[in-house]
């Protein structure tokens, strides 16, 4: 489903290289976890996947279902099934959450040549998804993410993900900021979305999330490169030993 090939990228306006040859393949239905020390380039990778233009790809390619997405706009990537749950979801004053959700959903449907969702159907869908994630309907009456607590913002990201039904879900530290119960709720939400056709790229610092969302593969990103890959046991090993040994081995 996703093939990242020798990806090199730098900050567009100042030229600092952040990704230095990332190679990563994710199959359909696979849950891949990426771990790695602060500043290793995890969020940068997620932004580049989503199409943020602050970064410039200098080498390599990203293939999604066999085709390069590097020339695609963020909205085109989203319509093609890519979703990024942000590490720091943005507050957008003045944009009503419901208006936003409906606009996004229908824009994607339109891009895929599907009929727009009528308001009653849309409302029903939102209500059901919000209910499962235990999101208060009152919250959805506010402007997008404005005044949401850290955990509420993360939950709202998963709500968007559930509504948009993407094919490739990139989740950047969705667990940080969530309380223990919320972590369980969000993980259940994600597990409910797991399917043969849907893949996940889960970025996290903690083994705890991976106990709930059990990954098929675990990769360690360090200084802009994947330095080690393994199965779920690699996460356990990291939890116990930290990164130093793996970093030394790779050097």
């Amino acid at each position, binding site marked *: 489903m996703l093939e990242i090939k020798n990806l090199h990228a730098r900050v567009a306006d100042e030229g600092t290289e952040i990704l230095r040859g990332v190679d990563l393949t994710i199959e359909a239905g696979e849950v891949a976890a990426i771990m790695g020390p602060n500043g290793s380039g995890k969020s940068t990778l997620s932004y580049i996947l*989503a*199409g*943020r*233009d*602050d970064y410039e790809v200098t080498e390599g390619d990203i293939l999604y279902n066999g085709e390069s997405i590097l020339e695609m*706009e*963020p*909205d085109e*990537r*989203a*319509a093609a099934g890519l*979703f*990024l749950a*942000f590490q720091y*979801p*943005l507050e*957008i*004053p*003045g*944009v009503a959450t419901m*208006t*936003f959700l409906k*606009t*996004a*959903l229908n*824009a*994607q449907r339109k*891009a895929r040549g599907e009929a727009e969702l009528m308001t009653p159907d849309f409302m029903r869908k939102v209500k059901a998804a919000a209910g499962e994630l235990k999101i208060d309907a009152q919250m959805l009456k506010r*402007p997008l993410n404005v005044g949401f607590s850290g955990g509420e913002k993360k939950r709202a990201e998963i709500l*968007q993900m559930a509504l*948009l039904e993407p094919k490739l879900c990139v989740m950047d530290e969705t667990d940080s900021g969530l309380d223990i119960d919320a972590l369980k709720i969000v993980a259940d939400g994600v597990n409910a979305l797991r399917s043969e056709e849907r893949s996940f790229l889960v970025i996290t610092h903690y083994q705890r999330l991976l106990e709930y969302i059990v990954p098929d593969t675990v990769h360690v990103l360090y200084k802009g490169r994947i330095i080690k890959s393994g199965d779920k046991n690699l996460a356990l090993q990291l939890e116990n030993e930290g990164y130093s040994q793996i970093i030394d081995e790779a050097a």
Partner: protein
Amino acid sequence: MSVTELRPRTPAETALVNLAEAAGADEDARRSAIEALRREGLPHRRVEAWHYTDLRALMGRRLGKDQAIEAIAAKEAGSTESVLAPLVAGSTVVDLDRSEAASAPTGVSISASDDLADWHETPNHLDRPVDTIRVVNAAFGARIAKIAVAEGTEFASPIEMRSGIGAQSHAGCSVEVGNGAKATFVERIEGGGSPAPSSGVSYLTVGDGAEVLWIIDQAKDSGAAHLGQLNVTVGADATFKLFLLNSGGGLVRYEIHAVTAGEGSEIRLRGVNLLENDQHLDVTTTLRHTYPNTTATETFRNVVTGGHGVFQGMIKVAREAQKTDAKMACNTLLLSQDGDFSAKPELEIFADDVQCGHGATAGEINADHLFYLMSRGIPAPQAKALLVKAFVDEVVEELETEDAIAEALVAKIDAWLERSH
């Protein structure tokens, strides 16, 4: 005075005086206003209050050398009155030229008068001794219609004031809202294709404990000129809310001058200025706090796709006006390199125990916000439109008014956004 008399009139000034005379100079008061206009001419950039709106130069471009007055006058006479639905459905429409309403609500009286605007003094100390907008208004013979709302009267639907929509017009009104009354007014400024300006001068007295919402809906034809002024006195414990929506016109200046007349009064000014093409739009406000414990908040949001915008906001706090709480903000969204916006907020504070602040920002659409919306599948033009709309709709929300009024304002804004994107 003798010094100014030596200055030769510009063709535009001469044309304006001639137009005023052609419209009739039948009585002394009006003749003296025309004399003042002839003597003082139009303000230019060295007059501080008009620094960003050099009326002499801007009028010069409109009423240049070869503009035949007959042609302008003929154009005015030829324009027809359009049938216009009120901004808010169910409003009482008052024709200021005839000083009459279809049917005035109970507790409201409307009558004609022979008064002209008093141009001998100006509410803005940065202006010249003769008030420019008032002198033009009086020279063109605008009569001050009187509207009175009796004490304690409350009526739900707005009173919409119009004057000579579709023609060049010069109107005036004096509105007295009695103690404890509650009323909404809409000043409708539309039409007008002539290079000469239309004008409107209003006086509003908000009685003690009264609540007034005054909406200015300025949507003149592109290329038309208008000079407007609202003078407000806000009584003790009274609330005065204002919404100014500028979505049209070629050369427009609207001045709002408010003064407190008792403790506990609240002034809330909100406005949206939508600019395109080669428009020149100027909003100038002065707030004078002269009693203790009064509050004022002032927010203008501007969307610029072209043209020149100006905001001048002056807050004056007198020595005795302790505990004044006054805030002013002017935020501009620049959507194109073709336009600009100048903001000049000023505070003049003589009391020591006050909270006053102002801020002016100008910028483009927030790239992070845009990315976030696009990452959810919303294409760039639609995402930008959402963000621009959010930027201006927030100000309507802050007005905290009835749904019907807020919706009418948002609909007007939407229509502009749709047409200019």
